[in-house]
């Protein structure tokens, strides 16, 4: 193997620093994150899990139109945000609500899309989080554009672009990685390989040795990590972000994880997979193994636990309170944001709707 190939191909095994039993593992290229980082991550995982559970419950109560849960993928969600600095950008998909919240976005604003009162609820510039993307992989070229513009402006921004295993099959994935590589743009492409695209298992999605092996075809270093090991993810994603920031160009990281629940509440996973397949993944739970490790190290004081629990309680209360009331919507909004300045046509149509509603009220 040439040295270029060595540099660009992923590790033979997904990087794992704390195994599924909570036991730390040595690694030649990556080191365990600090205690502080792990404790912070722990709290965020606990909160993320609660966020997922609460959001799912709210779907059942009709408070959200739909919720694609990241249950079981919380380590990916949390790590993707934790490794970023303030000026960096996050490009999330519909499944990455927990990551968005970890980045500091208001939970209710995060769920606007999924509640259905608007297409996106938060100000993307406030925390530098792009609107959640529904058309798969289409957000990836945007991420490259943001990164390229930053570079041209001389800013040291790094962009974290999230995509699923299914999304890697879209042409936009290819074009984005290629542009990023040619432009040497500081983007970390982070594939959460949760083994499914709705009902389609990875084997029907790709015949590659791993999704991280796609990097070399663009001249982008590929790496893979155990997607349920927060420690490994923080190390791998952290290094990728550092490299991108240092001018080493884009990085591709694949996390091996699993979509424990159905695609969304509207999906019935029993139609396409056996429970047997799911069970072992429950033992690989990201929170459980980190908890075991932290307990073993003696770092999980009752204060840490209570604090994490308090944050979790807070976020679920926030969701319940924020989502319980029917959102107030204003039909005039339909025309308010389409153009910086309304056109004659949108003005007329807005007036038509206003009159219609006024007549209905009368």
């Amino acid at each position, binding site marked *: 193997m040439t040295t270029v190939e060595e540099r660009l191909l992923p590790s033979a095994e997904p990087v794992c620093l704390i195994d599924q039993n909570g036991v730390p593992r040595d690694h030649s290229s990556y080191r365990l994150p600090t205690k502080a980082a792990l404790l912070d991550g722990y709290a965020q995982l606990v909160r993320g899990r609660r966020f997922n559970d609460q959001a799912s419950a709210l779907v059942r109560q009709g408070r959200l*139109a739909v919720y694609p849960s990241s249950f079981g993928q919380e380590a990916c969600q949390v790590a993707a945000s934790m490794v970023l600095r303030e000026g960096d950008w996050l490009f999330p998909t519909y499944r990455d609500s927990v990551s968005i919240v970890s980045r500091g976005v208001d939970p209710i604003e995060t769920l606007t899309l999924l509640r259905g009162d608007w297409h996106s609820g938060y100000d993307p510039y406030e925390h530098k989080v792009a609107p959640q993307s529904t058309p798969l992989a289409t957000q990836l070229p945007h991420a490259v554009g943001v990164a390229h513009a930053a570079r041209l402006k001389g800013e040291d921004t790094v962009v974290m672009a999230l995509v699923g295993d299914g999304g890697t099959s879209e042409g936009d994935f290819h074009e984005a990685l290629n542009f990023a590589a040619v432009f040497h743009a500081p983007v970390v492409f982070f594939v959460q390989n949760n083994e499914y695209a709705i*009902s389609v298992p990875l084997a029907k999605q790709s015949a590659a040795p791993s999704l991280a092996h796609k990097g070399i075809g663009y001249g982008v270093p590929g790496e893979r990590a155990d997607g349920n090991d927060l420690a490994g993810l923080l190390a791998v994603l952290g290094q990728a972000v550092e490299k991108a920031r240092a001018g080493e160009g884009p990085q591709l990281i694949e996390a091996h994880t699993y979509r424990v629940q159905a695609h969304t509440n509207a999906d019935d996973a029993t139609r396409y997979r056996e429970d047997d397949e799911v069970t072992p993944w429950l033992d690989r739970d990201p929170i459980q193994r980190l908890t075991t490790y932290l307990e073993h190290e003696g770092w999980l004081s009752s204060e840490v636990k209570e604090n994490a629990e308090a944050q979790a309680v807070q976020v679920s209360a926030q969701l319940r309170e924020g989502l319980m009331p029917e959102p107030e919507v204003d039909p005039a909004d*339909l025309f308010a944001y389409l153009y910086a300045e309304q056109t004659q046509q*949108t003005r007329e149509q807005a007036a038509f709707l206003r009159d219609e509603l006024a007549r209905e009220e009368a």
Partner: protein
Amino acid sequence: MTHMKISMAQALNQALRDAMQADDSVVMFGEDVGALGGVFRITDGLTAEFGENRCFDTPLAEAGIVGVAVGMAMNGMRPVVEMQFDAFGYPAFEQVVSHVAKMRNRTRGRVALPMVIRIPYGGGIGGVEHHSDSSESYYAHTPGLTVVTPATVADAYGLLRKAIEFPDPVVFMEPKKLYWAKEEVDLTEEQPGIGTAVVRREGADATLIAYGPAVPVALEAAEVAAAEGRQLTVVDLRSVVPFDDETVCAAVRRTGRAVVVAEATGFASVSSEIVARVTEKCFHSLAAPVRRVTAFDIPFPPPKLEKYQLPSVDRILDAVDDLQWEDS
């Protein structure tokens, strides 16, 4: 046994099943159409019945799906592909416009593409962004495509069977808000062919011209209008391309007034075309300009606001009221 009460989704499923039974070269593929049976269950049970070679899941890439279908059609098969939602047909746009629509013409008829692109479309089901587009005008504007859309359960079955048997590519637009509407139907009953519009209701005073998801709304409006003393004809286009000028114009000439009802945004759309051609052909029979009831020219709204965007009975009745009756 031939009469049964089924939903449009079930009728579509039965059409696929019967087509696959009747012709070995019919294959169905797309995202989640295998074990899952499609997110709308239109392909439910097909893999179980016909095997993985006849109904299969693909990687997640719409241009690839349509492009592969082109190749399979070139090589003797009759592929039916599903775009999961309207807006997810856009990645395949180049394949559709630059190849699907042009292959027969390009090759002087030597390479035909008997294939069907099924697209669930339109709103009314509370879908989040990108799940409620009405994309038919893009396809209707593209010469070489045939664009049909059923509004009834019987037509869902009949038109899909005809689309699969059709010698040319058909864009088959499925009004997703009607998927669960049930009707008592006899599937063995022959339906009119592609290219034929059908008068769903007769009335002397004005004509409502509608297609797909707008048809039931137009029929409901006609019902209300009748109660108020105005008799409306309702034409269901069924086939947007080719367009049935004869049926549409005959109705408009009989009634002298017309309203086009469509769920898509109006600007440069199929509804514009209907107004334009009806006016060109029936100008001197018209007592008033042809009116349109369409969506506003805005992106499809989020679920909580979609009701303001969809053509409603009231909007249709208002448009009918507006047809300058005092002049006549």
